[in-house]
């Protein structure tokens, strides 16, 4: 854990502090994004049975447990020890056992080419520097492996209001130079303009398989976003899933 970047340390402090409240209040499920869109509908991951799956930023391992039940050999990674305590409890309750590792996604203590799928749903991929974690994901995947992760669209960042808690129908921030957001709560998040994402993926041997810009259905409910967030996200994509194949 000594080689964490300063923003990873800040994010770990936040998650160690907030994990209990988050896991108690947010009703996190193994479904995509803030409106919990079902994998059965989006079909991002395909058949995971018999595959080695790494979850980056697993939290209480909701996704890991769901994928293990579908026959995947899962490893859960999280930077927060407190989150992993919740994951251990959840595994015990589910009667499952798979490895949980405490580490950031920018430097993962696991061997090269050891996974078929690297997945993250608003996980470490939102809180780590893409220029550090994308090369790690490329290293960890076998040829033909899938990287799938969800997070904020660049458009949603550009439209963030001054308080940082809602979205305007207006570009408030410049697109050129977009990359890092320092939140008032001390956390640091990352998002890139579309072209930068594409160049970064390509430079690490990924083929661009798909970009799902998520639109919540009418009346969708979320413990993360309010009605105004839903109204915005019905018109403009607030979150997206990249699907990339390692060559």
């Amino acid at each position, binding site marked *: 854990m000594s080689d964490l970047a300063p923003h990873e340390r800040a994010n770990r402090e936040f998650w160690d502090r907030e994990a209990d409240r988050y896991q108690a209040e947010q009703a996190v499920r193994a479904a995509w994004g803030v409106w919990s869109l079902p994998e059965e509908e989006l079909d991002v991951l395909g058949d995971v049975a018999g595959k080695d799956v790494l979850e980056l930023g697993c939290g209480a391992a909701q996704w890991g447990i769901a994928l293990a039940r579908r026959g995947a050999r899962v490893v859960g990674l999280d930077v927060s020890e407190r989150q992993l305590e919740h994951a251990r409890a959840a595994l015990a309750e589910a009667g499952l056992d798979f490895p949980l590792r405490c580490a950031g996604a920018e430097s993962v203590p696991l061997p090269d080419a050891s996974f078929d799928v690297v997945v993250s749903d608003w996980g470490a991929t939102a809180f780590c520097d893409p220029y550090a974690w994308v090369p790690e994901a490329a290293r960890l995947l076998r040829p033909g492996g899938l990287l799938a992760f969800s997070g904020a669209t660049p458009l949603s960042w550009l439209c963030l209001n001054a308080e940082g808690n809602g979205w305007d129908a207006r570009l408030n921030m*410049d697109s050129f130079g977009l990359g890092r957001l320092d939140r008032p709560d001390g956390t640091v998040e990352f998002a890139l303009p579309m072209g930068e994402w594409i*160049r970064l993926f390509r430079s690490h041997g990924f083929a661009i398989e*798909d970009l799902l810009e998520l639109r919540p259905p009418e009346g969708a409910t979320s413990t993360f976003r309010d009605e105004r967030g839903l109204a915005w996200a019905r018109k*403009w994509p607030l979150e*997206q899933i990249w699907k990339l194949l390692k060559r």
Partner: protein
Amino acid sequence: MSLSDHARRNREVWTGYAPEYAEGAARAWAQEEITWGVWHVPESELRALPDVAGKDVVELGCGTAYVSAWLARRGARPVGVDVTPAQLETARTLQAAYGLGFPLLEASAEDVPLPDGSFDLAVSEYGASIWCDPYRWIPEAARLLRPGGELVFLVNGTLLMLCMQEDEASPGPELLRPYFGMHRFEWADEDGIDFHLGYGDWIRLLGANGLDVEDLIEIRAPEDAKPHRYPALPEADWARRWPSEEIWRARKWA
């Protein structure tokens, strides 16, 4: 060869525009350097194109064919395809003036009377890339390319299409229309029909036609950008903050 209704309508519109575009065409043909878009950003900076020497190139929606002319001077064998005879007439006049002959073909990029697998590069700058329906012209571009061939096309910036005003006033930062459902655009003050997709839709469409996305170049107006003459397009201040133009690069699976 069949023409879609929007292709017919856009041909009428461009027949009307052709006389005023002849002057800009002469300037563009006179230019040695390859540049992109209304900010004239040099190809030497963007590096969107491969080495074209000895390559078969099709320009889809070539208009006055200045891009083909630039590529011909670098050793390419271009074919210019455009649906508007008046624009091709300007191109022919300039070909004669510069002694630079290459085939010009009257057709919509949605239905090109050329054989499969006959080009190494398909290019479009504000051509078919915005005036044809991508669900028709991308399959045609893919068909025309040889395995390993490249597709390079410039479109209006995606954010710009959300901010573009109806009344030909320069856009501001307000999002005036939704992103979901972007495809066919009709405007209050103009008869032409143009087409713009969201990022995910482009990626899926290219992939479905056997084209691997290689790059998306978001063009930033240079600091010393000169004003352009298109009232509906943003001023340099806007285009310094958000990309007003984007170049997609894709390659047909070998």
